[in-house]
């Protein structure tokens, strides 16, 4: 514990005593990356290797044939693939932005403002967090139907905006902001909106980045809303399109390769968003005002 470097995150050089940390961390890291390597390697395997027994982890003769096949399959469908992609981008973008805004606002109010029902609301949120979402699929359909959100792009967005995990995580982070900071700001004449925008949001950035990663995944990978609420083919999302595509081909031998390629294409945006948001988590964690 003798080598603390104040606020510098990384020490300037490696020390022998840290070797054991690296050994531990690097060996564990290998396991974390394994599934991702597997996805890439699987999508590059030629048919022969996909059905090899015993199966191999790494690809031996990488080929882009699976992607080429996938492209061929998608180019013959009536509705162009870009339509589904457009739907998914609009839906995912709105869900991420709106659900974070809603969670952050609610999290701030439930943590720092005084009003009668706040405890009950937070407990209700925890209960919703615990509830198995499959059990509410059908009742939720009736609500969506009554509101006229079926066959409407908003039907992908509005039902998932109140995200219990998001509120839970953000509220826990707002709790850690000392009340004195907020009080002194309000004595200086800051309104609650200013406090929220200028103090709370910058400090809870790491939590918001985390929640945005979770929200992105939930929205991008969501096939349920397309399946249940949308009858019009043109309103369905990319994720749903990919599952139907591979679902139809599953029994065919060639389908396996296409499925692996499709899975990778579905996964890559997750990875990109992750890398992008992850850096925000790091930046803000180190410089946030709470100590």
């Amino acid at each position: 514990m003798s080598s603390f470097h104040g606020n510098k995150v990384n020490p300037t050089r490696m020390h022998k005593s840290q070797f054991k940390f690296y050994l531990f961390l690097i060996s564990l890291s290998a396991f974390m990356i394994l599934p991702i390597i597997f996805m890439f390697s699987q999508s590059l395997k030629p048919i022969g290797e996909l059905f090899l027994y015993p199966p191999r982890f790494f690809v031996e003769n990488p080929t882009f044939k699976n992607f080429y096949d996938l492209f061929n399959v998608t180019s013959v469908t009536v509705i162009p693939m870009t339509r589904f992609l457009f739907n998914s981008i609009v839906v995912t973008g709105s869900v991420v932005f709106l659900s974070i805004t809603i969670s952050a606002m609610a999290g701030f109010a439930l943590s720092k403002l005084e009003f009668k029902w706040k405890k009950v609301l937070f407990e209700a949120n925890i209960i919703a967090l615990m509830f198995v979402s499959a059990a509410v699929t059908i009742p939720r359909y009736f609500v969506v139907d009554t509101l006229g959100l079926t066959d409407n792009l908003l039907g992908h967005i509005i039902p998932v905006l109140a995200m219990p995990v998001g509120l839970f995580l953000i509220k826990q982070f707002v709790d850690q902001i000392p009340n004195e900071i907020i009080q002194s700001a309000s004595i200086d004449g800051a309104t609650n909106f200013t406090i929220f925008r200028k103090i709370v949001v910058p400090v809870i950035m790491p939590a918001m980045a985390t929640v945005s990663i979770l929200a992105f995944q939930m929205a991008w990978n969501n096939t349920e809303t397309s399946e249940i609420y949308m009858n019009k083919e043109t309103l369905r999302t990319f994720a749903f399109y990919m599952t139907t595509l591979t679902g139809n081909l599953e029994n065919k031998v060639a389908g396996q390769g296409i499925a692996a390629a499709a899975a990778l294409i579905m996964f890559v945006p997750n990875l990109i968003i992750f890398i992008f948001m992850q850096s925000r988590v790091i930046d803000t964690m180190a410089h946030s005002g709470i100590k």
Partner: protein
Amino acid sequence: MLLKRIRRRRESFTGYLFVFPWIIGFLLFMAYPIYFSLNMSFHKVLITSEGIQKDFLGWDNFKYAFLSDPKYVEELLVFIKSVVFMIPIVVVFAMLVALLINQPIRFKGLFRAIFFLPVVITSGEVVKELFAQGATTISIVERYGIIQFIEANLSPSWSEPIIAIIQQLIVILWYSGVQILIFLAGLQKVNSQIYEAASIDGASPWEIFWKITLPSIKPFILVNIIYTTVDLFTNSLNDVIILIKEHMFKINTGFGYATAQAWIYFMIIFVILLFVVVIFGRNEDYNPRKAGR
């Protein structure tokens, strides 16, 4: 007095204003459907083309789940056993990794990213795809002959628990991404001057961990236990949820019975969390200054 009351009223008004959008979404898409499902769990529900038919059954769905269903109770018990075992391991593991990453080492950001990475794998379609393609945790280990290696070199009484831990380890790793991040945020809040002062006073790293680090991240431990419990229980790939989904569209049992199962399941999670909060939540406002004496 009056001024104070006006200010308080204004604060509660802005409070409601801030939560309002969330309340709307919550009531429509969470609270009402949950209430609706509770109502259905006491009915025999048939979904026909004209709408839904409901016949009141009382507690019959619940009785059936416990007394007649061949699989439900059994699956439930197996699952609860494994989860109760996994929660402490996930939390302790996440804390360990967070402590390591919080050390003054190089490539901190990289390690943090890598350990958070499984979050993009374990949720949603990706993991389903991974399972479908045979990238299940166990087969990866088996493919490399690690298990055979352990079996060949150790007696069964040693190799069995080690293999069990290895097989669980990957799952544990995959499910601890968010928890590691939460712990890291907590650790970074601890003022490094406290550590310096303690080490000058001659405290060993061990004492520093128990008396400074642990008390100051205690609220985060509770958050992580709750998060882990919920994460493991509501994962759409677990056996109980798959069972519930199966029953949803069976004609002889139907949606009513599936919701009854979901409610039993929910009550169990609720009891476990209540237990956790009672044990760990008691002295949440622990004062770290007291720990230094």
